[in-house]
C-alpha cells in the first residue's frame, strides 16, 4: 500500500456515531416490536392453517377437518336451538289466542243475554202501555 493510500485510509477511518445512536435505534426497534401482534402468525399454533394444501405439515389436514366438523356441528346445534325457540314461541302465541277467544266468547254470551233481557222487557211494557199513535182508542170511537 502506498503512502497516499495510507493517508486515504487514515482520512477515511471509521467515525463513531453521535451519542445515543444505539439507544435511539433500540427505542425504534422496541416500538416496532410492541406494534406487532403477539403471538405472531408465523410463530403461533395458528400457522398450521396457513397454506392448508401444502404437504409439509401432516397436521394441517387434521386441523382443517377438525375446524370443518366443528363448524358443521355448531351449525346443526344452532339450527336445533333456533327451531325449538320458534316452536316455543308458536305455542305461546297459540295459548294467547285461545285465551283471547275464550274471553271474547264470554263477552259475547254476556252481550247476548243482555240483549235478550232488553227485548223481553220491551214486549211486556208494550202490552201494558199501548202506543198512542198506533190508532184511535176504544173510548174515542165510542164518542164519535
Amino acid at each position, binding site marked *: 500500500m502506498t*503512502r497516499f493510500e495510507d493517508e486515504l485510509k487514515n482520512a477515511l477511518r471509521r467515525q463513531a456515531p453521535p451519542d445515543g445512536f444505539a439507544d435511539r435505534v433500540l427505542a425504534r426497534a422496541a416500538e416496532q416490536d410492541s406494534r406487532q401482534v403477539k403471538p405472531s402468525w408465523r410463530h403461533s399454533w395458528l400457522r398450521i392453517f396457513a397454506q392448508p394444501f401444502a404437504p409439509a405439515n401432516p397436521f394441517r389436514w387434521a386441523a382443517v377437518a377438525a375446524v370443518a366438523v366443528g363448524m358443521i356441528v355448531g351449525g346443526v346445534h344452532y339450527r336445533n336451538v333456533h327451531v325449538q325457540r320458534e316452536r316455543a314461541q308458536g305455542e305461546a302465541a297459540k295459548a294467547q289466542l285461545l285465551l283471547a277467544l275464550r274471553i271474547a266468547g264470554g263477552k259475547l254470551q254476556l252481550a247476548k243475554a243482555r240483549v235478550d233481557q232488553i227485548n223481553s222487557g220491551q214486549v211486556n211494557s208494550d202490552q201494558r202501555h199501548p202506543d198512542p199513535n198506533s190508532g184511535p182508542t176504544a173510548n174515542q170511537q165510542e164518542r164519535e
Partner: protein
Amino acid sequence: MAEPVPAEEAADVTLGDFAEIVRRHQSMVFSTALRFLADPPAAEELAQDVFMQLHAKLNTLKSPEHVVFWLRKVTSHRCIDRLRRSRMPQVSLDDLPDSAGLELSTDLQPADPFLSRRLKQLVASLPAKARLMVILRYQEDLSAEDIAGILDMPAATVKSHLQRALAMLRDKVVSTMGEVRSDK
C-alpha cells in the same frame, strides 16, 4: 477490519442481542453513510434505517459474517438509492474548489489534518459508485473481490474503478497541495 463476533450472534433475535449487534457495527454503518453522504444527520437517519431493516430480517441471517456482509451491502445500496432520490448533482473532481488559503507543507506527515480533510472532501465528490468503492476499500479495508460481492459487479470492474478513482484523487491532491513525495 471486520471484528470477530460471537458465533451465536445471529441465532437469537432478542432485543438484547440486537442491541449488541448495533453497538458492535454502528461505527461501520454510520461511517460508510457519513463518508458517502457527507451529511451527519442524513447519515444517522440512513444508519438507523439500516439497523431497523436488520431488526426485521435478523431471523433470516444465518451467521455473524452474514450479518456483517448484509449490513455493508444494505448500507451501500441505501446510500446509492438516497443519492438517486435526492438527485444530488454529480460534481466532477475538476469542478472542486482548490484549497486556496491553506498553507500546506509539501512534506506530508502521517495523519496530516489538512490532507485528511482535503481527502474527505475529494472522496465525497467522487461519482457514486467510485466513492462507495473507495470507502469500502480504505475505510473497511475490503478487497476488490469483497467489494464486488457487495456491489454485485465483477471484481475486474471494481479494480479498474478503484485505480481510476485513486489516480484522480492523487492528481487532485498533488495539484492543490503539493506532491506526495513518499508515494511509493
